């Protein structure tokens, strides 16, 4: 699949009020990807914009692994059901976008079942001051929900680190945010010093990250969308690193070495209270919460190998989670809390693997040499990760259902450590 490259969106955008959904019909999930057609939208005669919206949606649906989406050539006014039945399409999406005023648009969207010839879903949405890419992601989530009865993960954002080689072995580090398809990238911080481990806050208003700008690893919190000063966490002796948010957004998990060992702490942002969660002479790091906040998962070499552990915060019990392979690291919980995604070493290669926490079944999802930093989409259907392609870092997405992997566009330099936001408000 090809992605449109470098389509730069100039407008600041947000999607406003959405009218109620008329009807939601859930199609039964099928074994194979569901064939769907996304027709170009009717954008007041702007054919190019109409196609762009359809293409973004098509790419989204294909990436999800649930759909086999294709584009239609022409705008669908009246659906030619015989034609689409012959094409083996099962559902068709089409719509219209109308400019109400300079910054307000009305969007009509339709989803039609090719065989029953019934309209499965139709909605009129009013969009304020928005860009077409953001609308396309918003509509993708609507259609996804209409078809599957589950939330899509498209109207969301990514944050990641881009590293650009500036020659003479100097590097420029950029903290970036983008749409869920890695398009519309925006740099929110540029530094000559390394930036690591960006993490969206649950409210999607803040990004915690590690910076070496003062010559050592320290944790900062940045506000990408508002004029507000970057917050620096208090000084700790040694390493301060690996920030990860509590689901309630009030505290961060950190790796600190202030007491000699590298252990996991929770740091409460309002009262500065620090709670030590692990105490071991080994390296404990890369901690993150379960979605209910009741457990943490972290990486430790306490067994002599790098493995994944889960701590129950009520019982304080720590259990090893990974037993397959000699190296497992940087695990994150799936949104339902039942699965971990992690970096798993196979011979000399580092791959992304899924672990069913209860059954301990391990499934290797990727096949490259240096795959790292897996992170679930908010609906759990996809995993984004960083990998190397032709000696360059790229972001990739693998769908859990279709097991398809898609490389997302990278403009220049290496791209690292993707982190997926929660849903937009």
């Amino acid at each position, binding site marked *: 699949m090809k992605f449109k490259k470098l389509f730069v969106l100039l407008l600041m955008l947000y999607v406003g009020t959405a009218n109620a959904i008329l009807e939601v019909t859930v199609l039964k999930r099928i074994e194979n990807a569901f064939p769907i057609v996304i027709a170009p939208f009717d954008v007041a005669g702007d054919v190019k914009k109409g196609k762009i919206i359809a293409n973004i949606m098509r790419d989204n649906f294909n990436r999800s692994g649930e759909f086999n989406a294709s584009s239609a050539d022409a705008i669908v006014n009246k659906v030619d059901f015989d034609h689409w039945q012959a094409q083996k399409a099962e559902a068709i999406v089409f719509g219209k976008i109308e400019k109400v005023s300079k910054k307000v648009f009305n969007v009509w969207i339709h989803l039609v079942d090719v065989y029953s010839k019934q309209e499965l879903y139709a909605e009129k949405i009013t969009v304020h001051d928005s860009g077409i890419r953001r609308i396309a992601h918003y509509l993708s989530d609507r259609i996804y929900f209409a078809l599957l009865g589950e939330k899509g993960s498209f109207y969301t954002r990514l944050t990641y680190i881009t590293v650009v080689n500036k020659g003479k072995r100097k590097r420029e580090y950029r903290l970036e945010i983008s749409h869920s398809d890695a398009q519309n990238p925006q740099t929110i911080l540029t530094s000559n010093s390394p930036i690591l481990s960006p993490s969206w806050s649950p409210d999607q208003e803040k990004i915690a990250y590690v910076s070496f700008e003062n010559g050592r690893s320290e944790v900062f919190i940045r506000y990408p969308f508002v004029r507000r000063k970057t917050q620096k966490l208090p000084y700790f002796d040694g390493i301060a*690193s690996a920030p990860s948010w509590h689901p309630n957004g009030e505290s961060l998990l950190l790796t600190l070495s202030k007491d000699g060992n590298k252990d996991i702490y929770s740091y409460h942002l309002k009262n500065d209270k620090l709670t030590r969660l692990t105490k071991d002479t080994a390296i404990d790091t890369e901690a993150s919460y379960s979605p209910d906040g009741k457990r943490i998962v972290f990486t430790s070499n306490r067994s002599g190998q790098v493995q994944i552990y889960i701590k129950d915060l009520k019982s304080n019990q720590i259990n090893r989670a990974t037993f397959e392979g000699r190296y497992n*690291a940087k695990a994150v919980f799936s949104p339902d809390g039942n699965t971990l995604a992690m970096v798993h070493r196979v011979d000399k290669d580092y791959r992304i693997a899924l672990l069913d926490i209860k059954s301990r079944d391990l499934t290797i999802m990727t096949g490259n040499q240096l795959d790292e930093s897996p992170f679930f989409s908010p609906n759990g259907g996809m995993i984004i990760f960083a990998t190397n392609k032709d000696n360059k870092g790229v972001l990739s997405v693998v769908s859990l259902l279709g097991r398809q992997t898609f490389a997302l566009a990278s403009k220049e330099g290496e791209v690292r450590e993707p982190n997926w936001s929660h849903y937009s408000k």
Partner: protein
Amino acid sequence: MIRTIFLITTVSLLSACSITDDYSGPAVVEDRSNVTQESIIASDESNFESKSIVGTSASLSSTEKAAVVELKSAGASFILHFSYDGFDIDESATAQIIKHANFMRDNPSVDLRLEGHADERGTREYNLALGENRALSVKEVLGLYDLSSRVEVISFGEESPVSELHDEDGWQQNRRVEFIYR
């Protein structure tokens, strides 16, 4: 002048744990001739502090700088290398660290910064921790000479490689602790 002091031959080490399936053995002493150049490259690249002469920072006086250069020309290693996922210090590495201990005793005005580094394999956060363990291993030896208060430890993990090679050669160069006087 660097004089010999009484050597403590038994060095207690931090709890050692290592996966040695790629490259076994504890820390090895730097024995390549291009250390100086690499070190300068490393400092240029890291942008953290200008290190005009290997192992020195801008905060040193010219006399102190000259002393560091003399230590270097007397054969002291300013970079120690480590095994994959390892942070053990072997005998020859210990001997090198002792040269630095002597130097610090003879030059009480200088402080030392130990910068720990890792190769690119494994996760960035783990490597940040591993780099600190390596620097702390070196610091522990210096601690036997009561020098701990003059030693600062910083880890850069895998973020400041000296080699861009994605093979054992490059990895071996990047698993290191650098000595920087300040």
